[in-house]
């Protein structure tokens, strides 16, 4: 075997070499320890209620907290003068599917310190309940209703926990969950049939229904005036 042939069959033993150098994923830096002052302070104050943290997309700091301690942590984040997150920009949910917990995500901003923070809470599918933060930030009112509507997370202590985007009596589930089919649970024909068969009386008060019955009786009774069948003019 000549020298230049040496090593030619190494690939058989070792398997193919990767053709391109494997690039490190640019967004997530799993080893990076967040130096965000709030996350450091959170860890110091709440200890085991802080479940994890990560720096995503280069400079965005995310912290996972224990759902049981949500309200205390949120209140501290708003009221502590070093944190002062007075703006609750967004409350939303994530469903990864495959039985993974549904997460509630809070995007916060402090207009005093110009800090942004993202707080996430993982809720197991059999305990989809979390404290409402409406009493701290009024902006969370509709946002939490939307999370309830689309994900089925119910917020303890919310003043008006009803659906907001879907009809209030929608009974097919929560559309943004991964187990909800894209086109809905029923066919278009079935949806039409259900819409036509619903009890519309429940939308009216007894007063209005009584008036309607009176009109009905007048129209159908023996004293009802004969309907005009001929219209004068064109």
């Amino acid at each position: 075997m000549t020298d230049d042939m040496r090593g030619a069959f190494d690939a058989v033993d070792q398997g193919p070499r990767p053709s391109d150098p494997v690039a490190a994923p640019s967004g997530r830096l799993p080893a990076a320890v967040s130096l965000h002052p709030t996350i450091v302070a959170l860890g110091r104050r709440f200890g085991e209620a802080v479940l994890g943290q990560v720096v995503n997309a280069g400079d965005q700091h995310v912290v996972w907290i224990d759902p049981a301690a949500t309200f205390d942590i949120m209140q501290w984040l708003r009221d502590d003068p070093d944190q002062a997150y007075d703006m609750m920009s967004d409350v939303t949910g994530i469903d990864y599917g495959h039985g993974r917990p549904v997460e509630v995500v809070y995007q916060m901003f402090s207009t005093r310190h110009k800090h942004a923070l993202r707080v996430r809470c993982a809720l197991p599918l059999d305990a989809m309940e979390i404290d409402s933060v409406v009493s701290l930030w009024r902006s969370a009112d509709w946002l939490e209703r939307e999370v309830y509507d689309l994900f089925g997370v119910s917020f303890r202590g919310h003043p008006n926990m009803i659906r907001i985007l879907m009809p209030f009596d929608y009974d097919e589930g929560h559309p943004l969950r991964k187990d909800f089919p894209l086109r809905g649970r029923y066919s278009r024909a079935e949806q039409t049939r259900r819409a036509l068969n619903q009890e519309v009386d429940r939308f009216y008060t007894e007063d209005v229904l009584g008036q309607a019955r009176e009109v009905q009786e007048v129209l159908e009774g023996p004293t009802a005036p004969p309907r005009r069948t001929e219209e004068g003019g064109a």
Partner: protein
Amino acid sequence: MAQKTVTIPVTRNPEMGPGGRLVPSPLMPFEVENPDLGSERMLINIGPQHPATHGVLRLVCELDGETVTKVVPDIGYLHSSFEKLGEYRTWNQIVPLTDRMDYLAPLIYNCAYVMSVEKLMGIEVTERCKVARVILMEMDRIFGHLLWLGTTAIDVGAFTPFLYSFQERERIYDLHETLTGARITTSATRIGGMMADLPEGWTDQLRAFLRTFPDTLAEIDRLLTRNQIHIGRTQGVGAISAAEAINYGFTGPNLRAAGVDYDVRKDRPYYDYETYDFEVPIGQHGDCYDRYLCRMEEMRQSVRILHQALDRLPGGPINVEDPNISLPSKTDAMSDMESMIHHFKLIMEGIPAPEGDCYYAVEGSKGELGMYVVAEEGGTKPVRWRIRPPSFVNLSVIPRLAEGHLVADLIMINASLDIVLGEIDR
């Protein structure tokens, strides 16, 4: 039954006071019955099919006489679940969904979405692309504010500003059309760049618009800013304090009108906004009139930014030079094997993303527009795509703003918030 003595100044009183002032007539005092009219409340429905609700919005109002005691907004008539649809589309296929949300300023939504995805993937766009996007976003800020200006003026009875502002909007529609071929559904951006470079002569067309637009704006300003009817309808109506405005989640001109100095372009700058020379107008009273003043000034500032951006618009490519992100040119795709493979892979598979999530906020015309994307490792579709809707949060404040005002003021308050239902219902 209450009895009340009323002294009424009358004009035909022969004993006219000094300087022509009216004096109460000694002949006129009389007793009137001031009956207690009872406190039965009335429920009325405004919308969903009503031009003054600025979209398919239904406001259920409880009235005491003509005073609003309670407002319950009912939304969801336009719900089309864009966020769910996004989970079934590759990153680039989502772009057309974004401009269907805010059809009054579509380019801001196109840009905000791709900026978020690029941040998640760690893509740095070219300098020309950055400046071009700044131009498009500022242009559409004017576009959105002009619609607000026209429709709000018409709500308080001023018809002329409506015509003037829609005439100017028409010229931006033309700019959209020259750029993308569409007037509303622009879909101008792609991950890593734009659908196409700015066409030849487009910047001149925009400069021509910028030359004459301030005159129209000044004309509308003369018609409204010191107009007594307009002032009477807007000053002191729907006022909110600074601390409350933050707590209720106001953003954008609505928040700044209440005296809070928060502008995403200044406080969380993106695309080198810190290097542009512009002011952020801040109001004092948080009422409808201050919101009007803030938006008027923002349009003037956008003109300033547009001039600077047009001056610094560099040459060079508009898309990133990475075949795994940007599509090859059509000629290359048809004649070069490598390019065809890249084209095929990009269209059929999409661009893989790293695991993680990214929230990217820009200053939209309505307020802080956030795009939140969540991806799995190597995912070519989002696990979750969320729009932080500025109008949605701004509209949720309307029960607080309108209570205690008259029904006519409710219309003004609703108009002054600058909502777009396509984005509220999503």
